[in-house]
């Protein structure tokens, strides 16, 4: 047998390595609906189909008013456009319009300034972020074609989200900051999962599991001390990564972006969310590692339990359901708390509480497993199950 062949065989005969190979396919392919969501929302935003728009005639002269009336009656976009009097965009948005364009200026002076107000939603975040650009292009086009000559147009976009008005720039900054903050999740989840798994895998590989389990120690204490140890060390790893990142940002002269949008309370909330997910992941990694007999196998458990954390990360791009039910799904705590500045803290609190509860449930299962014979014969049991499955086929 060639050397490479031996190495590959050694890896591929590890059940957890197989799981590590198969799982990403399942996870990513199951994310198709989310991606479909992105494409659909982008299309919706581009086509402006069914978009209900109001043009608010605010501070314009008579000639301009006439021009606008002509434009609106002749426009051939997919939008329905109503011409209304007034300057208060938010109250019009509340009436059920998707876009409100407040137009100031004069056709005679060939100068317009348009304020675009878009009704945004976290559920359709991609569309929310794409709409202002498409809408402003369409309006510029309409106004320019209506006038004989080139016009001077300024457009400023606002997004009305969750009863608050954000400038478009502000919203994308918050979104970017949230994306950056999400990275901290992986700084802590991967070390936590890996260390938790190894603490169990090593006991077996070093032939110490029998000794440990024969000692007069409560199973709960074994589970919790191992989890705590893995958490402490992975917190150090995360602190190092986040610290280095901050140094990089400040040294390079960039402002730390999330300082503007995230209050101290928001940051604390996010830290607690990270901790709750890390705790969940550590315990889950330890539980699965009971079925491995080697450190090699335990190492493969880390990506298995950390991978699902990517799902909410993708959901952040497509838009997140604002429902408490979704918030209680595992791995959701970080995403709901990182969005707290936009959607309020209630979802985050519910999500964190749920995540801790789920961690405790997994811990209870893990403790039961440690009390049972599976702790001793875990890998053997897995083999038996696989054999039975094969026989049935």
């Amino acid at each position, binding site marked *: 047998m060639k050397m490479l062949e031996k190495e590959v065989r050694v890896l591929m005969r590890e059940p957890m390595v197989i799981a590590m190979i198969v799982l990403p396919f399942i996870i990513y392919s199951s994310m198709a609906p989310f991606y479909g969501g992105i494409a659909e929302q982008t299309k919706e935003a581009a086509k402006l189909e069914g978009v209900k728009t109001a043009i608010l005639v605010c501070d314009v002269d008579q000639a301009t008013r006439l021009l606008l009336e002509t434009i609106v009656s002749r426009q051939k976009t997919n939008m329905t456009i109503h011409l209304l009097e007034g300057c208060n965009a938010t109250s019009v948005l509340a009436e059920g319009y998707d876009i409100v364009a407040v137009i100031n200026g004069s056709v005679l002076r060939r100068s317009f300034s348009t304020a675009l107000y878009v009704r945004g939603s976290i559920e359709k975040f991609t569309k929310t972020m794409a709409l202002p650009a498409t809408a402003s292009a369409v309006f510029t086009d309409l106004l320019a074609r209506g006038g004989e000559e080139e016009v001077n147009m300024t457009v400023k976009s606002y997004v009305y989200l969750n009863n608050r008005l954000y400038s478009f720039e502000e919203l994308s900054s918050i979104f970017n900051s949230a994306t950056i903050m999400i990275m901290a999740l992986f700084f802590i989840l991967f070390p936590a999962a890996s260390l938790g798994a190894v603490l169990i895998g090593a006991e077996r590989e070093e032939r110490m599991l*029998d000794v440990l389990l024969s000692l*007069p120690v409560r199973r709960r204490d074994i589970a919790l001390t191992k989890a705590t140890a893995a958490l402490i060390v992975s917190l150090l790893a995360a602190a190092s990564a986040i610290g280095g990142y901050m140094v990089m940002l400040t040294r390079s002269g960039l402002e730390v972006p999330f300082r503007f949008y995230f209050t101290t309370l928001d940051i604390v909330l996010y830290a607690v969310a990270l901790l709750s997910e890390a705790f969940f992941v550590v315990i889950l990694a330890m539980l699965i590692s009971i079925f491995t007999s080697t450190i090699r196998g335990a190492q493969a458990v880390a990506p298995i339990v950390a991978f699902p954390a990517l799902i909410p990360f993708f959901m952040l791009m497509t838009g997140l359901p604002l429902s408490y039910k979704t918030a209680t799904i595992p791995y959701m705590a970080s995403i709901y708390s990182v969005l707290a500045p936009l959607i309020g803290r209630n979802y985050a609190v519910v999500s964190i509480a749920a995540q801790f509860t789920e961690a405790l449930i997994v811990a209870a299962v893990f403790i039961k497993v440690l009390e049972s014979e599976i702790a001793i014969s875990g890998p053997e049991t897995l083999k038996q199950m696989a054999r039975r499955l094969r026989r049935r086929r």
Partner: protein
Amino acid sequence: MIVIVDRVEKVYPGGVRALRGISFSVREGEIFGLVGPNGAGKTTTFRIIASLIKPTSGKVIVDGVDVVAHPFEARKRIAYVPEEVGGYRRLTGLEYLKFIVTTFLRARGASREEVEKSVDEAVELTGLPYEKLSKTKMGDYSKGMKRRLQVAWVLAVKPKLAILDEPTTGLDVEASYELRHLIKEYSKKYGMTALISSHNMFEVETVCDRVALIKNGLIIDEGAPREIVEKYDAVNLEDAYMKILSSKKTMHS
């Protein structure tokens, strides 16, 4: 009787019938040996008594405690050295002794001084130089050194019941000699009961007060080594062992 094993059967999840109803009891302070061919069920028996695995049926009582119903209480009374000896690769021998002695004795409510005394005693019992114990990690210990470490802590904490699965396998002549004498000494001095398995009949003959011969998950004979030797008109236990196995073979066929 400090250990009562009553009609214990064990069928492993895969369907292997490792034990087919074995019963024996051990008196306090006694050294009881379990002998038998590979795969006979010795380790399975020990793991059941040490509450690591559960019997399919039957009962095990240690010092009045039902091992299956109250494993935590049972574990306070039992110290166990598995057959496959291990060690934490990244801990020094001394760190390991401190950890395990503290863990065991704290559960029994021992004071800090008692724990420290036992750690010192364990260090002494390993027979290894202090330098080696405190400076070298267990990953660099030989198999025999690891086993000496494991047996040392078990003796040092003076459990009600010490379970030693093949304690001298892999030890050099001198170390096995010392170990056998230590086990006997601790049993006499502190009334410690010991369950030992071994493939070395000389060892069993010199150390054990009584032995049970186990084969295919059944006890096929039991008694003081001397009695067994006499009963089969053998020169020593090894001779008797061979006679028993061959007679049982012909009996079955």
